[in-house]
């Protein structure tokens, strides 16, 4: 299966869709040149083949994969959240390789296909881990709200940590880059698509704590040891926007919506949030 056929797959952008692509390749014994999502513009003269997402086929591939290796299945799940452009093809190749080699596929770290899948899932995990650390909540009418802008869609990997840590809190994490929000209230947690979020005004005392934190941050650095490069290594600048203590972070009122509407949000009842106009 190492030679690639002159063919490009189109899939629906979901994990089951991708599994169906794997099904197709295993059935025909050909690897595609590339795999594109539906709606992506064509940039090649190669003929395209649309692979419909079929639940049966996807379930079959998934079951087979888990029999082979739980680790490989876990990698696939996590790496699929990645924002990398080549993720569909890389994972497709990885799964075909898994079915070719059989058990213990996750051990073949020297194989470029396996190594790429490993790398993808590690990048996603690392980003999720960094955000568990760097995310900052603001209290608004008793609700803790945070905003993130990750490269990968890491919300599914983050909820569990905060739910375990703050079981009594109502909190939400808004992923601006992927237009989704994670909500947690009274032990229930869900992820919903959402473009724009309007929040209530900050709770009294919120600004004071932010100011205290900023001052603490500035004080704790030892002037004689200043080392901006080391700081950037540990905490890349792309996270700074949403970390209130960092230089150049947006002013603390950034989450504030049009205050004239003054909607009391969320807390009461089911509709935990309101969608902004046009959504």
């Amino acid at each position: 299966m190492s030679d690639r056929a002159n063919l490009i797959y189109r899939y629906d952008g979901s994990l089951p869709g991708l599994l169906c692509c794997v099904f197709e390749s295993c059935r025909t014994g050909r690897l595609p040149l590339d795999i594109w999502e539906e709606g992506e513009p064509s940039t090649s003269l190669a003929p395209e083949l649309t692979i419909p997402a079929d639940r049966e086929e996807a379930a079959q591939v998934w079951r087979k994969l888990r029999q082979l290796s739980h680790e490989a299945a876990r990698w696939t799940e996590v790496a699929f959240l990645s924002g990398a452009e080549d993720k569909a093809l890389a994972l497709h190749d990885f799964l075909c390789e898994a079915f070719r080699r059989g058990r213990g596929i996750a051990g073949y770290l020297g194989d470029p296909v396996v190594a790429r899948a490993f790398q993808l899932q590690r990048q996603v995990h690392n980003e999720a881990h960094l955000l568990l650390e760097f995310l900052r909540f603001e209290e608004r009418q008793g609700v803790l709200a945070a905003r993130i802008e990750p490269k990968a869609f890491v919300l599914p990997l983050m909820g569990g940590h905060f739910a375990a840590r703050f079981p009594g809190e109502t909190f939400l994490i808004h992923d601006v880059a992927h237009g989704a929000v994670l909500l947690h209230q009274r032990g229930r947690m869900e992820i919903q698509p959402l473009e724009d979020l309007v929040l209530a005004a900050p709770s009294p005392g919120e600004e004071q704590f932010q100011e205290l934190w900023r001052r603490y941050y500035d004080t704790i650095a030892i002037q004689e040891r200043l080392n901006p490069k080391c700081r950037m290594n540990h905490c890349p600048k792309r996270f700074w926007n949403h970390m209130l203590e960092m230089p150049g972070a947006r002013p603390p009122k950034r989450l504030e919506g049009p205050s004239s509407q003054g909607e009391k949000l969320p807390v009461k009842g089911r509709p935990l949030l309101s969608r902004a106009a046009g959504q």
Partner: protein
Amino acid sequence: MEKLEILSDAAKYDAACTSSGSSRSTPAGGIGNCFTAGLCHSFAADGRCISLLKVLMTNYCVYDCRYCINRRSNDVPRAAFTPQELADLTIQFYRRNYIEGLFLSSGVMRDADHTSERMLRVLEILRQEYRFGGYIHVKAIPGADEALTRRLALLADRISVNIEMPSSQSLSRLCPEKTKSSILGPMGFIRDGIRENSTDLVRYRHAPQFAPAGQSTQMIVGATPESDLTILRLTQGLYKKYQLKRVFFSAYVPVVQDALLPAGSKPPLLREHRLYQADWLLRFYGFAAEELLDEEHPSFSPYVDPKCNWALNHLEQFPVEVNTAPYETLLRVPGIGVKSAQRILTARRHSRLDWPHLRKIGVVLKRAQYFLLCGGKAPEGLRVTQDGVLRALISQKDQELLAAQHPQGEQLSLFGPSQEQLTREDVMQCLTGQI
């Protein structure tokens, strides 16, 4: 607000800021848990991680330690938290995901017992009233009653006593009111508490935990004349005798002028860095202090790290074959760490490893290539000669530095065309920083 600034400013010279080693789920009806690996919530402008809210209960102090910013005779603004204030602040910071927990230390106000009682009150409010499950690191106050230290340890995750100076002479010179026994006493007491508690835990599953993340200590590097060898031996002894989890080193920052202290120079950051590198080698790589340094070479090389230094001094043990070498041997190869050594073990079960494989696995070939063979072969075109390896391992910047320090020319030849003249002794001297 002022209070927080004064009391965190006074606490910042404590190096320890780890939240690791404890695992706990959130107490029922409470807030917060602990992650074994620890989390770093932010990084300060000096590049150090901020994981805990690091403050002093108070910076009033009855002691007059020469190096300390809070010494009695130093004229600085003084402040003190009430236990309730500090507990509230911790919870509010924690809820906002700013911190992983609290690092509580204190100047000694009135006497050691009184200070310990106030610290104990903070921990009680946090653990019992807020049912706080996050991380707490507390300093034991030397000279406090053992019962108080015991109660602190039962509420905290980690407890530590700072050893401050690497020898008792330095201690008595710079901290006239502290003695070696006043520091090692509580350390031994905590060790026994942890040991006793671990047998209790086997017997009764719900026995309260005594400092589950262990104890640590810190010493100041560069304020006194001790050599790296002395410090490293002491460190090794502390790990063995007192079963410490960590020993921290703090490069001396001249915060107060004193005739007994080195005058205002830059903190010895590189030295601190080398000590930490060696500390890791002691804890995770199976090295002993005596392997890294000896009486003839009592300080670390400024040019290469301790592991490279050791490997270059023991070239007869290299190269080793990646596909067969045992784990312990792989760990001793420069450029291979704990993670990559483990990955090598996994990967070589499936297929023979080659150079490109190693790179993918995460081995730093820049350093490792001189000490490894893959399937009996060295990388193509690589000649392993002592000076060649040395040149490759020293960064460009350091080479210039080295050259600049020895403008007479004979050391310059090390990197000039007449390399043949270089003897093994020259290289070794240069490596161990004896030139």
